[in-house]
């Protein structure tokens, strides 16, 4: 397995990485000077897969959408402000109140220890019928209508970045998997 990994790394032509703690920001590939949070760090901001992430920065007072624009922008000294995946959800448009779901984090202390173990926030493979078939969407589509927020642009994790950002109607080929059942009469 290690050999396989080594092959994979070599295949990508990357140099070896030093070990680092979660929480470190990473450079946006191909865009020197641009940085974003490591994926592992981002995953810690959610209580479980599907929970809204907490806001990882101090309150700025300005409207959230002045940085979290449709494409997102680089904020000097902070990193990349990602776009919102749900700009088109009814009730969550540009005039919505983001704080309804995304709250700040003002302390690391707890009132009482929690024993909650949530569904892990993780990458899941969208299954393909064959190596050339488009993968199905392995997560709910609701509130994630803006596919490019996560699958394109500097905020996208490399593993799920679309190789064809010029095609804008994603649902033409990628469908949401809503059940593991198969059809039977």
């Amino acid at each position, binding site marked *: 397995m290690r050999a396989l990994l080594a092959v994979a790394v070599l*295949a*990508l032509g990357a140099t070896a990485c030093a070990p680092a703690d979660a929480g470190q920001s990473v450079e946006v590939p191909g865009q020197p000077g641009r940085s974003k949070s490591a994926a*592992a760090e981002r995953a810690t901001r959610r*209580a*479980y897969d599907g929970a809204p992430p907490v806001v990882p920065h101090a309150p700025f007072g300005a409207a959230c959408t002045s940085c979290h624009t449709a494409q997102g922008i680089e904020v000097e000294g902070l990193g990349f402000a990602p776009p919102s995946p749900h700009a088109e959800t009814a009730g969550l448009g540009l*005039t919505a109140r983001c704080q309804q779901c995304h709250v700040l984090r003002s302390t690391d202390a707890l009132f009482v220890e929690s024993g909650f*173990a949530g569904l*892990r926030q993780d990458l899941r493979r969208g299954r393909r019928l064959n190596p050339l078939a488009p993968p199905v969407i392995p997560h709910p589509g609701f509130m994630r209508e803006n596919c490019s927020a996560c699958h394109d642009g500097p905020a996208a994790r*490399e593993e799920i*970045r679309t190789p064809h950002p010029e095609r804008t109607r994603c649902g033409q080929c990628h469908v949401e998997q809503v059940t593991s059942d198969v059809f039977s009469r």
Partner: protein
Amino acid sequence: MTQSDRRGFLSVLGAAGAGVVAFSCGDKREAERIVQGQLASSLSPADLTWGKAPCRYCGTGCGVEVGVRDGRVMAVRGDEQSPVNKGLLCVKGYHLPAMLYGKDRLTHPLRRRPDGTLERITWDEALDLVAERFQSTLTEHGPEAVAMYGSGQWTVFDGYAALKWVKGGMRSNNLDPNARLCMASAVMGFMTQFQSDEPMGCYEDLEAGDDFVLWGNNMAEMHPVLFSRMLETKRRRPDVRIVDLCTRRTPTSDYADLVVMFRPGSDLAIANGILHLLVRDGAIDEGFLTENCVFKRGVEDLDAIGYGCFGDQAERYGFKDEARDSSLDELKAFVAEYTPERVAELSGVAPAQLAALARIYGERNRGTVSLWCMGVNQHTRGTWMNNLITDLHLVTGKISRPGANPFSLTGQPSACGTAREVGTLSNRLPADMVVTNDEHRAKAEQIWGLEAGTINAKPGYHAVDMFRALARGDVKAMWIQTTNPWVSLPNLRRFERKPGDGRFVVVSEIYPTPTTDVADLILPSAAWVEREGVFGNTERRTQQWNKLVDAPGEAREDAWQIVEVARRMGMGHLFPWEGDDWHEAMFEEYRSFGLGTGKDLASYKELQATRGMLWPVVKGRETRYRYAAGHDPYVTKKAGVHFYKAKGYGERAAVWLRPWQPPAEVPDEEYPLWLTTGRVLEHWHTGSMTRRVPQLHQAVPEAYVELNRADATELGLKAGDRARVLSRRGQVELSVRIDDRGQPPRGTVFVPFFDEDRLVNELTLDALDSISKEPDYKKCAVRVERAGDAP
């Protein structure tokens, strides 16, 4: 690693490789972690079993889907099938599952030893102890010495079991819920005007309305999902207007077209001022009034009414309003003195703003929805204020049709379904009935199979008087379930208690709280989806859920606890069902109270199959708009409205003439600032659940005091400094916030009440609404002192 995982990894790499960029180091480490088995072992949403439930927290009643695996809740998601929230939630709802898993869940019955420590006992011992103490108190001191203090978070089962046990079994009416602290004024508003409780409209008003007037209601934080529905309406129809009437600028104000800031307590003057302008400008719908309304006037003598907290009234407040007939002409004369100039003097609201409000209510071709919650209800004249808001809709005929309704919002998930509909209040029975009415008692006795005359005709203590009686020693045995009065009662120091004072206090809870701290016996309760339940939300929607996971340890549902105690007291005939699986049978018995009366609930089977239904439900059809022809099956008219429940008013609604009167305590030289209290988005009520959710606690870990910048500067305080807030009743030290999420005007400070370590209710006054006996948490006088620098 399996073969397929390996292939998967390669295909993932392949996708990235085909893209324009290579892996960064951080992402590559992620990919390695995934390949090293974590992807293979991690579950996807499809691996969970999903069940439906309403949210545990507020009265909105959002539908959530609950994801369960191996007996534990691992995720929730907004229920897209729920007509309430259509898939959205707020931050509390998204973090619901963590509410169940605080490390200090109560899992076994605990009895307090004489030395104050707690010992674990068995359920049998605990239930025997409760039965024995209540029985001996009844025998020695009679039914006025026992009491049960319940909750708007009770399921219908809990409330119905409590009602039967207290009123049908112990023949006491000392049963009152914490809902007395939050929506009793709305109940009395609807009862005095329609002789039937609860709103006529539904949440579809939020799409159908043109103008939304929020009376003292920070909807953005308290009912976020309803607020987002309203914002979506405005996004689609930019001519929609939102008016925020407030005593402090809140996040709601940021989204309003018109912000009308007024002096605490002057809302009565503003509403009368709007009536004045509607009369002056001929905007009254006299045809509607003639056909559908009567006019009433009550006692207005301030000395006779009082505030429920001074002199003799501080021990027992029993003021009764007396109605007399009035008329449209008298109304016109009554509001004549509320000129824009006089209203401006009383309220600080500019005449131009008052005129804008009057135009909104007066415009015939636009639908107006008034929304309110605690600002209006927690008010020494809260019933009056409820009356006046509804008056604005009656005099303009803007009622009982889509997009034009007075709509009272509730704070607890089943304040409507349990407290109001089951009638777990000291004077009520199910389906709008009261213990003071002979026919109503007879009907309850007949359904319950009790001898005539069993139910006591004398109303019991309302919530605050119940705790006053406990403090005096008149109440000797009290059972408290699903609520935290030693944080939420006003003027808390009045109610300080030490176990071992000769009284017996039992508390059913899921976590340790300041209330369990003073209990003689603690019973561990099952929470939310750890048991089967029914809640009724703000829009008359009854929602059912099944048990989805086991409760921890020996925790059991509240209704079971009551049934078991009743059986031990020889009152098993009240709960004639075998074993523990009585939910459907109990619900169907309860449902028989309302059938045919306009309070018809859906059947249990219908509730199991749907995302809730709006009562009255007749022949399987719900009612979106009560009293409206074409909507309500009880209205036989072809068009218009019919207030068929108001038999005492000739089946018409009552317009009440209600004056402005000053609050109970106003700022003076010694205590120069107004204190108003309330909630924040992240925490629900006393925080016993939400503070155990890491994301919510970490967002707002402690209570604070919001100050106006000018006041802060004068006091030498800056943001983050420590301040001492003092009233005639107590003091609390808090950190200072300036120009934060809420911005009080000069002369007002705000403190949220969720924090058991910083109890703002040690400062509040136990002044009560004259009719509903609901406390006023929004207005008392304080002084602020500098206590130190920011830590």
